[in-house]
């Protein structure tokens, strides 16, 4: 008995209004996740308390960690008269009870629809003396009816630049680069920092959820864990010699704002998932460090290549369906192409102008063989209908937990990647970026294929050696 059985293969009415099984969620959760990557910051959701509850729950379910955040708890009154009183109360309560260094306010569809002016309210809070010395409130406008969770993440990341980064006017610091990692797992952020350091550079990384959403069990709950980008480090981002923004959707806006504000040159590049995108990342760092790549990184690259040669026979010609966030999808698709696999179906709910172009560049000759869609109705239902109607069932699914329903119905292995992963534990501890991270993805894909082969092999073809 299948679960998503209600539509037949040929049934995908031209939808323009109804989204079914979305491949995205809303901006505020992205802003909340980004804000958690700021050390001693309490994210604050300015809207109904349900938003905050949903976002915290989803983040906790994905990261298996506390996701602390405040809410303005709008009621009908605040919706009519504006949320100023609520936000003022929140600011007072939060600084009094929880004592963060920063409150990072993001708006919701509610506060945006009624037109609350957060900076003005924060001004009022300052006037009322609600901000203790040295503390700050930053904000991002993240109406839920614009963009997606990834653009919300981008907007809060940009807010860190707008509110905090400064150019001291002195010469840029030669070895200091800004690293804007985009929405990746905490372990990815650690891995990216490690690579930058190995390249002889000092990364100013923001947001940085490593040490926050992968924090240790110590018997003590730290309201503000040891990790996260400090305000001081972000302030000094204005003095870095370069900004590397990973993923145009999540990290591009902050990098551009930092250039505009502090004249830090920036490069926006693909998330370094896969050999090629990581090569690009290392190439750029090499340009900045004066032109060297240490042996350690060369070895990691060579190990990845070694696995790629060893595993190639199992990957060649296999097809996959992907859904999720554009920055991830482009790099994942490129990875599959370098493995001689075909990312046959790709959807993202996140809107944005350059996605088709980027996917086209990555797919190259294979573009004709692949279906790519983006936007409101580019949802997992569409993806599933494509899969159902394809006579050659794809060999692999890569995406978030929601893919398990398609995986079950169509009997296709699923590799969980992206956000949210609600039904497994551990992903936040294993990077999938860089050469080393890519080896993890390779292992996962190979295991998926070989487990399947073992499962389906007849007695005579059940193999000891592979």
């Amino acid at each position: 008995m299948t679960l998503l059985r209600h539509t037949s293969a040929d049934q995908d009415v031209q939808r323009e209004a109804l989204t079914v099984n979305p491949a995205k969620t809303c901006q505020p959760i992205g802003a909340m996740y980004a804000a958690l990557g700021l050390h001693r910051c309490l994210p604050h959701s300015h809207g109904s308390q349900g938003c905050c509850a949903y976002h915290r729950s989803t983040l906790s379910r994905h990261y298996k960690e506390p996701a602390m955040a405040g809410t303005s708890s709008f009621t009908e009154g605040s919706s009519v008269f504006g949320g100023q009183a609520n936000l003022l109360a929140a600011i007072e309560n939060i600084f009094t009870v929880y004592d963060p260094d920063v409150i990072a306010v993001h708006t919701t569809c509610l506060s945006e629809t009624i037109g609350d002016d957060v900076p003005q309210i924060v001004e009022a809070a300052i006037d009322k003396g609600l901000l203790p010395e040295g503390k700050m409130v930053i904000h991002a406008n993240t109406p839920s009816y614009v963009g997606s969770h990834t653009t919300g993440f981008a907007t809060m990341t940009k807010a860190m630049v707008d509110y905090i980064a400064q150019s001291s006017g002195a010469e840029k610091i030669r070895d200091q680069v800004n690293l804007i990692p985009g929405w990746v797992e905490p372990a990815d952020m650690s891995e990216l920092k490690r690579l930058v350091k190995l390249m002889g550079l000092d990364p100013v990384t923001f947001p940085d959820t490593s040490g926050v959403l992968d924090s240790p069990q110590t018997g003590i709950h730290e309201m503000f864990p040891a990790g996260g980008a400090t305000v001081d480090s972000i302030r000094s981002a204005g003095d870095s010699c370069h900004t590397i923004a990973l993923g145009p959707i999540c990290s591009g806006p902050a990098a551009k704002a930092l250039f505009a504000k502090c004249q830090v040159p920036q490069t926006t590049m693909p998330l370094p998932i896969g050999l090629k995108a990581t090569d690009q990342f290392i190439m750029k760092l090499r340009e900045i460090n004066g032109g060297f790549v240490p042996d350690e990184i060369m070895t990691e690259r060579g190990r990845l290549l070694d696995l790629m040669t060893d595993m190639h026979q199992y990957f060649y010609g296999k097809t996959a369906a992907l859904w999720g966030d554009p920055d991830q999808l482009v790099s994942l698709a490129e990875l599959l192409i370098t493995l001689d696999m075909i990312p046959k179906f790709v959807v993202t709910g996140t809107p944005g102008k350059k996605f088709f172009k980027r996917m086209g560049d990555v797919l190259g000759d294979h573009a004709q063989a692949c279906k790519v869609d983006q936007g409101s109705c580019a949802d997992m239902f569409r993806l599933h209908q494509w899969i159902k109607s394809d006579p050659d069932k794809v060999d692999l699914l890569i995406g978030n937990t929601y893919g398990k329903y398609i995986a079950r119905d169509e009997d296709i292995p699923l590799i969980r990647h992206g956000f949210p992963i609600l039904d497994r534990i551990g992903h936040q501890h294993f990077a999938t970026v860089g050469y080393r991270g890519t080896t993890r993805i390779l292992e996962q894909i190979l295991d998926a294929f070989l487990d399947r082969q073992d499962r389906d092999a007849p007695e005579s073809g059940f193999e000891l050696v592979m």
Partner: protein
Amino acid sequence: MSEHSPFDDDSEVAVTSESLRDDLLDAYPKKTRRKREKQVVVNHKQADESGLVSLPVIGANTRTIPGVITQRGCSYAGCKGVILGPTRDIVNITHGPIGCGFYSWLTRRNQTLAPTDEHDNFMPYCFSTDMQDENIIFGGEKKLAKAIEEAYELFKPKAIAVFSTCPVGLIGDDVHQVAAEMKEKLGINVFGFSCEGYKGVSQSAGHHIANNQIFKHVVGEDDTKRGKWSINLLGEYNIGGDAFLIEDLLQRCGIDLVATFSGNSTYDQFANSHMAQLNCVMCHRSINYVADMMEKKYGPPWIKVNFIGAKATAKSLRKIAEYFDDQELTEKVEAVISEEYPAVFEAQKTYKPRCEGKRAMLFVGGSRAHHYQELFAELGMKTIAAGYEFAHRDDYEGRDVLPDIKVDADSRNIEELHVDADPDHYRGDDRAKAIERERAGYKFKEYDGLMADMPEKALVIDDINHHESEELIRRMKPDLFCAGIKEKYAVQKMGVPCKQLHSYDYGGPYAGFQGAINFYKEIDRMVNAKVWSMIQPPWSDQADQNAPSSSSVRRDG
């Protein structure tokens, strides 16, 4: 009643309930403290000369204070997520930006069991109008109408429900009008819910909005007659399969379960539910008014039941049998209880010695923080603090206080249906039977609330927030804390296991007899897990040298 705090006996420092309460409240700014004082209560029960016990008054169902890091969610969550979520054959379209639909997509573990492939089950789908900027500016009604049509064309459901999110009310989309038009056009039932997130002060408002609309638009649509012992189960949402166990018990007793609101439910069950002879209310908070409305409009009385805890389950089954007052039913019920109880005793014998004396705190839901105390009691565990996330005063203090509850502005915004007896469908016989049973001493509509069952001087806290939870745990080091996913990991970081009572941590079922056994095992696992003793490294009792900074100790080699 003992005068000392439930905290005193185990803790080394002299913490009293009162002192702890003060400590919790001391952290707040003045205004916040004033509000919280009403909601953080020491359960001091006073008996008057006649032995009548009076409970302290608690503040409940009031606004959450901004910024305190609350457990609460919103009206939409209560309406779409809790009440309508478990019904499998209604296409539920969220009208709004994508988030609300996304977060309520399969996240509540309300299981369902379509008997065959031919039966609809839309629960694995998320339907949304995914409102965009332009829909906010120019209105979303057209998109909603189109979305309903598209959903109909793809899925051909027997009913479509529309859920309003925050901006919908603000921009003035009339979802009810759109629903009415589409009902007309498509020839299936289409109805809307004005469950914008800002409505009311918690999920509770959403429950009310949901139940009202189901009562208005669905209940009473199908007059098919039911068997001789027919009941509805109200306020049971089949988390982790609870309803399956209860259904099994009722079936074995020969009781005809017409509808569950809304665990493992279907549209047709709701439509026929007014034909049941008795309503049995599990979660008093989320649905007692539906029972009242049904009684008024159709005649059947209601009783409070509880299938959490073996004793409570037996008691509830007996109470149902007692209502029908039929030897055959009574015998069947007793037979079922006799079949089930030996395994329960066996389990208690195993697990009680391993759990006895351990101390629990429960802060969750609108009835679970009460009902689950039954199970802890069966394990010999003490509940030293508890409270609800979205309950009202009657859920704490009992239905006696209903007349005293002030209706504030937030609650006034939630529609109260005015219901009269339905001239065509009111069943006088049910009413007559209820009156006869009441005369015989049978109690209807009886619910004494959580506080009556809590130990003297236990802390009862409404709408607890993170600060208060953390202080409670830090100070009292309970053996177990029960809450939800938002609290879970912070609690556990303090070295205390946290049992989710919304999702059961993906365990369960915990209802009925088998469920009780499941719960005993689970609690034993949690409070006796080796891992909690290993958090401190073996060298933690030795003084550490100053570590060189990590950069200086790294070498190649």
